[in-house]
């Protein structure tokens, strides 16, 4: 009897989703230290950071599975369950891309060309900014649920997502510039290294892309 009231509440996905994006961001943030070490050729340090990235990626994965299990179809929620699961999926991809890109660099002990090193680090930082802004936006989820996805809170989140879009556009610009710079020096590089360098740039840029998609998913929730 006593547990009727307790059991009627399913496990709320809101705080766990906020926690998940926090882990995904912390994972992406490691990339700065990782690349800084890689550029210096300090592979011991890079390897240590890489382990931390893997650990965080696992943590995000575990939490993702836990949230999914806690969202059976019998739940009655103010927003469609599918939309929340999609949001979770793109959040998780921020961590996945971080793991992928650090894996390639680590595996090949890739030397980032000194000519573009500074520019490359700036690009990485901007992607981390995008992930951070995604975290800031998702952290408004509980407030959105409290207000029933209407009113002043919606305007606030819309503003946050706009900011996120601007950061993503900025990473696109930086990515184009970086590719140009790499193109200018690619003849001086080992061809295979050059190809992989393009790929590293591409994968890193996807972190901001995923962050932007987090924003898109949030926006979908707002329109309910």
């Amino acid at each position, binding site marked *: *009897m*006593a*547990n*009727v*009231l*307790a*059991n*009627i*509440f*399913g*496990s*709320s*996905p*809101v705080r766990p989703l906020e926690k998940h994006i926090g882990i995904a961001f912390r994972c992406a943030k490691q990339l700065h230290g990782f690349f800084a070490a890689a550029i210096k050729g300090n592979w011991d340090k890079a390897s240590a950071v890489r382990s931390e990235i893997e650990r965080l990626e696992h943590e995000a994965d575990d939490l993702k599975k836990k949230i999914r299990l806690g*969202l*059976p179809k*019998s*739940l*009655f*929620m*103010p927003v469609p369950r599918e939309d929340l699961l999609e949001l979770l999926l793109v959040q998780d991809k921020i961590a996945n891309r971080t793991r992928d890109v650090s894996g390639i660099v680590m595996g090949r002990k890739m030397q980032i060309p000194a000519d573009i090193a500074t520019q490359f680090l700036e690009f990485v930082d901007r992607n981390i900014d995008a992930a951070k802004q995604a975290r800031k936006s998702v952290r408004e989820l*509980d*407030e959105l*649920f*409290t*207000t*029933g*996805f*209407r*009113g*002043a*809170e919606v305007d606030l989140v819309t503003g946050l997502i706009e900011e996120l879009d601007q950061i993503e556009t900025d990473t696109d610009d930086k990515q184009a510039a970086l590719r140009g710079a790499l193109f200018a020096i690619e003849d001086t590089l080992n061809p295979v290294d050059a190809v992989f360098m393009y790929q590293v740039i591409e994968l890193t840029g996807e972190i901001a892309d995923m962050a932007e998609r987090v924003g898109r998913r949030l926006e979908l929730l707002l329109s309910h």
Partner: protein
Amino acid sequence: MEAEIVYIVLAAAFGMFMAWGIGANDVANAMATSVGSKALTIKQAILVAAVFEFLGAVLAGGAVTDTVRKGIVDTNLLASDPKLLVYGMLAALLAAGTWLFVASKNGWPVSTTHSIVGAIVGFAAVGIGIDAVQWGKVGEIVMSWVVSPLTAGFIAYLIYQSVQRLILRQDDPLAMAKRYVPVYIFLAAFTITLVTILKGLKHVGLDLSLRDAYVLAILIALGISVIGSLIIQRIQPDKKAEKNAHFHTVERVFGVLMVVTACGMAFAHGSNDVANAIGPLAAVVSVAQNGVITAKSTLPIWVLMLGGGGIVVGLATYGRHVIATVGKKITQLTPSRGFAAELAAATTIVIASGTGMPISTTHTLVGAVLGVGMARGIEAIDLRVVARILVSWVVTIPAGAFLAIVFFFIFKMVLP
């Protein structure tokens, strides 16, 4: 004479056991909302529950008790052999108590009210005769079981919608909360006092005119509202906690309101559920004392107090643990949501108590929670549990009835 004493002692013991069970399990549902949302600590919740359950039982519990003791069974048919009513009511108490014990051991969401009504209908229909049941009244009661959760859900929906529109969706929710929460406090205190004065106090011998009743209710509600707003004005934003949850301070303002609705909920629960334990007891006592079934017999006040006391003992011995457990599980019910559910449920229950309808307080509260959910207020509600509640309805009534029939025939053989 000796047989009469045996009846009263047995009935008091069974009634006490039922009241204890209600206090141990049911009250937790009424109070856990406030504990879960941290509006009250467990100690405060027990204090509030003890005081207001008792007040509710004594001040507003009379009408439902009357229904349970003489509204379901047609006592005219028993005039020739009043002992049958004694056996039956004893059987009903023991049956409901046993069934509730089994059900709560297994975690089934059954209702005290459904058990006792099923048990009384069971012994009357089989032990005495189909005609001994006042089917019209029983039909009304069953209807009220459907209507009460729906009503509570609807009221909760409206209340939470208004909270969102007036406060949560505004640019400065804190200022709005400070402005409107005293109004909600007034409304909560006003409805509950008014219904109590109009419907309940007759049973304790107070009969006010309609105008006086309104004036008194307004004065009491204003007093509570002023005290509430004084406390609210002193609430200052906590910058550190705000960073994590923007509505932290707003919820603290609602927490003040929730203390009021928690009192209302305990009062409402006492006014309705205590009857399940003491209605049959009162019936036995009146037969035993008078030797005949009197339609006009008044409810002895010690019976109400025994019921209220039993609930408090159940609460203090076992209920506190249940409150703690349930409270931890319902954190989704923040004060702004919890008060809407509690106020809606308490209002519905107190009105039902006033009209003498024994309803399930837990199911009414569940209806209210669903109402808040409908207003997009709750993050996740498990519909499987709602379905299970519906199933428990279908099972509880025959189970209570069956056990009551068995006990009835045993008592008929064994008791003098």
